[in-house]
């Protein structure tokens, strides 16, 4: 059951990573750039507002599954990190915890700012919040993957 949940957590995180990265790059695209045919221009040439609900639903789902898995991490993985004195790994996970919580709490504002019709007054807040959510998702994804593989990597 827990293994299935861990895999689900990872798969949902991959989907979230894709959605929020596309949105963050699309939100910062310059007008002229979208007409060029470079890889980045094509990557950015997407309707950023269309990702709003997907990001909110996926972030919430990843967070809920992560919260269910968390006691198992505390019971099985954290003691190994402590006995092996892997302080950085422990700290990285503590940050993942805080970043997830802060990310979850900014989602209502993120959702409001991306609601159509987009208000030009809040463009900078919209772009900044999207990048904040994207950075949180990237940090959490990388730390999560490293911790899952920590036995093979460091022990």
């Amino acid at each position, binding site marked *: 059951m827990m293994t299935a949940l861990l895999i689900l957590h990872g798969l949902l995180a991959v989907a979230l990573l894709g959605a929020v990265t596309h949105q963050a790059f699309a939100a910062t695209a310059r007008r002229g750039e979208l007409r060029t045919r470079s890889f980045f221009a094509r990557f950015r040439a997407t309707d950023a507002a269309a990702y709003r609900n997907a990001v909110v639903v996926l972030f919430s789902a990843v967070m809920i599954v992560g919260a269910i898995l968390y006691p198992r991490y505390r019971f099985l993985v954290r003691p190994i990190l402590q006995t092996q004195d892997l302080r950085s790994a422990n700290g990285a996970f503590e940050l993942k915890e805080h970043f997830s919580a*802060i990310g979850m709490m900014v989602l209502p504002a993120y959702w409001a700012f991306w609601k159509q019709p987009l208000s030009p007054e809040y463009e900078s807040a919209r772009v900044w919040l999207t990048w904040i959510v994207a950075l949180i998702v990237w940090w959490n994804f990388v730390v999560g993957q490293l911790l899952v593989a920590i036995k093979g990597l460091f022990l």
Partner: protein
Amino acid sequence: MKVHGRLILFSLAAPIAYTLAYYFDWSLFQYYVSEGRIHFSPLPASAGPPILWYGWLATAGLAGGAIACAAPRRLIARLSPELPWLIPVAALLAALIYEMRWFL
């Protein structure tokens, strides 16, 4: 603030409340892994280490929700459009500084 002012206010208040909750250990409850139960007051050390994170989330959610519901509309209308990203950035930096002890 024209767009969903109370949602935005929640996103301002809750990260601040969360930062205060973990800094001052204002956990609404503790979850004891070995017992698999929630307790509203701390148990002796023999009960094993508790998980405080759920309690911090609950504290922040309740505080953020209460502030967002109770704030007068005039105050919400006067919020700067820069605050909704400045506060989360400050909260992330505070978390980085707080957890720096693991990396030194």
